[in-house]
């Protein structure tokens, strides 16, 4: 039997005016297990807390019930008070007789009666409380960033700045991501390369950052503070240490017809290649799909011309095993495939391009050296039609497209239109829009400039059909404000394709046990209050893997994710919430019901020996909860058919004791 002390607070007149505090203390003093009950003006005041401490010591109290304001207000206060008097803080329960009684019930008799009942429920619960000690786990002070685009780079730089080592795992031969492919950035029109490449160099030279390019995540085990990660370093057939990035091999490579993915396939590269001049690491990679030596055994020219002796055709994939305390996902996005939208003739005419392709056509480092030329005949386009929302904002039952707004298209289309008009004033530019969405600093001003200064024709309506004919693209569209159908003979059509999470995200989420929405964007722990954390502890989100974002937002989120990582890594140990799920292995069936409903992946299974009848040993599969990962929601306790799973601090028996006390 516990020795319980009950402390009834007046809260000045807040409680005492409508609750007879003396009667409450008196009634509760008669409850079983209660050895002391009193009332006082302000329990939370220093003298109130002193009294609690004294009584704990004097009477050897093993449990404390405070009848006062909401536990959301002072539960933490009273727990600390008791802890300082040597009582386990989880032996304290609060009966909320202010918000739930004195403030809502005017009749003193009624209020007093209810306060007594709530006090009884708290006493009944404390009877079953057990001392809980928050577990501690050590933290590996190193972070992993998956994805080396602007999100990953910024996160890594910020974490490295705080003095923690970071690994960036990038699946391509270089970091840089989508931003490296962009020409100018909205709304300031500064050149993407000018602001991105210095960051790439910083990342490459930072002694706290290691870039594992051309690598993928193979497997993830462990939990917050203690992840074990296997990283596949794909064979690039070039020794990274030796390669100087001089580019001689690229000049001499006879296989020159490989579609250049960096330029969206608008031109070709060689089989051994460095994706672009500012690549980091600036190291050549052999594309095994096209290399003559690797496919036919004949050639070997790159090896012969390499002065650094860096080419190694025998290289194999390697698996690297590392430990991390935190993982940041920054896997980014891709434009959707436009094959299904052939009403715009994307696969029927080379002059119908996606916005990212257009970006390359405008870029000084692109396939046309920055002169805008039509892909079909390399002539100047004089009429360009931009189509917005291609594949965005589609109905779920439509078989193609995404339900969400891709968020960045309105702005980059305005940018494209403006840049085109600035460089080539003789070009007519039409933009077909459903809505122009420009919430962002300086965004609407930017769009207005496109209309007002650059005379871009913004037309509210949608293109319904594009017909290539005689070197022109016949565009048929609606102009809803004019209520007419219009026909434009265009030279180019640019489609603002919806963006979608990178295809590597879904398998990665499975490895991380991080949750995703139906669109394969990672879900955040709380949509408003924890936007850069995954519900799985220790996993953080940066950039478009969480949802469509522009560059400023991505960088902001990258910084936020980094600061969350830093505040985790500065800790030597993690102190958990001790109110976590606890399975009774003697009753556990190992049926995996609990695991299925756990949003945190906190439950795993172990085969354990148990004593069977007649001195035999039985091996049984039983659930194991990782207290460092469990957040204590209790979903598993109800899913468990045998009642083996219980929640510390809110156990079945505790809650039922409260029910009994209330219904008596």
């Amino acid at each position, binding site marked *: 039997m516990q020795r319980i002390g009950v402390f009834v607070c007046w809260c000045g007149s807040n409680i005492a005016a409508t609750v007879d505090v003396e009667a409450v203390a008196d009634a509760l003093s008669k409850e079983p297990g209660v050895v002391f009950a009193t009332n006082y003006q302000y329990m939370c005041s220093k003298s109130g807390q002193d009294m609690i401490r004294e009584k704990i010591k004097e009477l050897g109290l093993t449990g404390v019930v405070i009848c006062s304001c909401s536990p959301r207000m002072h539960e933490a206060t009273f727990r600390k008070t008791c802890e300082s008097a040597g009582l386990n803080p989880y032996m304290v329960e609060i009966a909320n007789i202010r918000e739930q009684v004195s403030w809502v019930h005017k009749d003193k008799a009624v209020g007093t009666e209810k306060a007594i009942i709530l006090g009884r429920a708290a006493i009944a619960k404390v009877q079953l409380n057990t001392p809980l000690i928050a577990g501690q786990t050590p933290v590996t002070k190193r972070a992993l960033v998956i994805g080396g685009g602007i999100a990953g780079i910024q996160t890594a730089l910020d974490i490295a700045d705080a003095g923690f080592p970071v690994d960036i795992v990038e699946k391509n031969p270089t970091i840089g991501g989508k931003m490296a492919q962009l020409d100018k950035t909205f709304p300031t029109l500064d050149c993407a390369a000018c602001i991105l490449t210095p960051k790439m160099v910083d990342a490459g030279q930072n002694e706290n950052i290691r870039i594992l390019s051309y690598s993928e995540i193979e497997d993830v085990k462990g939990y917050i503070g203690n992840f074990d990660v296997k990283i596949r370093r794909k064979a690039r057939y070039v020794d990274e240490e030796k390669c100087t990035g001089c580019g001689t091999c690229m000049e001499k490579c006879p296989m020159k017809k490989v579609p250049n993915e960096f330029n969206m396939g608008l031109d070709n590269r060689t089989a051994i290649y460095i994706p672009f001049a500012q690549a980091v690491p600036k190291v050549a990679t052999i594309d095994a799909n096209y290399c003559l030596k690797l496919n036919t055994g004949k050639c070997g020219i790159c090896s012969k011309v390499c002065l650094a002796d860096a080419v190694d055709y025998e290289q194999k994939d390697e698996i690297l095993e590392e430990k991390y305390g935190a993982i940041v996902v920054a896997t980014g996005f891709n434009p959707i495939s436009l094959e299904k939208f052939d*009403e715009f003739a994307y696969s029927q005419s080379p002059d119908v391009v996606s916005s990212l392709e257009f970006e390359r056509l405008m870029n000084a480092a692109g396939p046309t050296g920055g002169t805008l030329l039509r892909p079909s005949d390399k002539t100047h386009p004089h009429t360009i039609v931009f189509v917005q929302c291609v594949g965005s904002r589609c109905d779920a039952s439509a078989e193609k497209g995404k339900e969400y707004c891709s968020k960045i298209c309105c702005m980059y289309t305005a940018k494209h239109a403006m840049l085109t008009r600035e460089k080539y004033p003789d070009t007519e530019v039409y933009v077909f829009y459903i809505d122009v969405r420009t919430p962002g600093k300086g965004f609407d001003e930017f769009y207005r400039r496109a209309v007002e200064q650059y005379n871009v024709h913004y037309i509210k309506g949608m293109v319904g059909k594009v017909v290539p*004919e005689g070197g022109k693209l016949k565009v048929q569209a609606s102009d809803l404000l004019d209520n007419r159908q219009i026909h434009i003979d265009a030279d180019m059509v640019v489609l603002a394709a919806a963006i979608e999470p990178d295809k590597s995200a879904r398998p990665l989420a499975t490895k991380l046990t991080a949750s995703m929405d139906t669109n394969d964007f990672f879900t955040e722990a709380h949509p408003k209050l924890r936007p850069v954390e995954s519900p799985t502890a220790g996993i953080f989100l940066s950039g478009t893997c969480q949802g469509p974002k522009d560059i400023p937002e991505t960088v902001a989120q990258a910084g936020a994710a980094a600061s969350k990582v830093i505040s985790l890594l500065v800790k030597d140990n993690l102190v958990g919430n001790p109110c976590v799920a606890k399975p009774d292995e003697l009753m556990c069936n190992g049926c995996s019901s609990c695991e299925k409903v756990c949003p945190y992946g906190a439950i795993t299974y172990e085969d354990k020996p148990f004593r069977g009848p007649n001195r035999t040993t039985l091996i049984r599969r039983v659930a194991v909860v990782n207290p460092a990962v469990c957040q204590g929601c209790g979903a598993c306790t109800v899913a468990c058919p045998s009642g083996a799973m219980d929640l510390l601090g809110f156990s079945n028996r505790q809650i039922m004791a409260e029910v009994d006390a209330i219904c008596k």
Partner: protein
Amino acid sequence: MKFSYYPGCTLSAKAKDLDEYGRKAAEALGITLEELPEWQCCGAVYPNATDEIATRLSSVRALSKAKEAGQTLVTLCSACHHVIKRVNGDMQNNIEIRQNVNAYLHTMEGAEPYEGDAKVIHYLEMLRDCVGFDTLKSKVVNPLKGKKIGAYYGCLLLRPGKEMQMDDPENPTILEDFIRAIGAEPVYYGMRNECCGGYITVEDKDQAKKRVNAITGNARNSGVDMLITACPLCHYNLKKNADEPLPVYYFTELLAEALGVK
């Protein structure tokens, strides 16, 4: 290979060529087309209204018969195909329509319930999926070399893509692959899947004319010498209502020619 065959009324009258050559070509390819007994007109227009039952009945009767015969049902006319395939989809997926149709057919004709389990394909799908264009190519005795042919799909053959499930409704390839298989050269032109206005030809000839002229113009400017189609309505419209018509053939006619059975 044996299939149930639904010719449809136009093919037995004004579009005899489409039917006759289709049968001859099938025979040459070693395919038996068994004409359904006592088939009725499909109604020519798919009843978009979800509460129309009567206009779905003839399609269901045809489908039930194919199911009884245990054979896939082949259609040739685009319009019939459109109607029958979509009604079949309704019988599979729309419980209300299924119940009402079956209730009617049971009460009036004592028919067994039909739940959309027959398979209906277009003659072109039969060529692509059952014969194979490669096989077809190998059986061509008279390749139509040097002919620049524009495939005219029209609207009913492909749309709605979700229900017709035949080809990409915006960038189809089945007719182009067919043209290649018979040894001719397919010519792409953008308006091959734009409507010719066939349904409206009786109601408003001028409108139909305008549509046809746009299509023929686009085809001609893209280098098309002749058009082929699977639809009697399109055939009539392209031929009769264009100001400067291009030669128009049913695809079966060229097929029969290539197979040497014309």
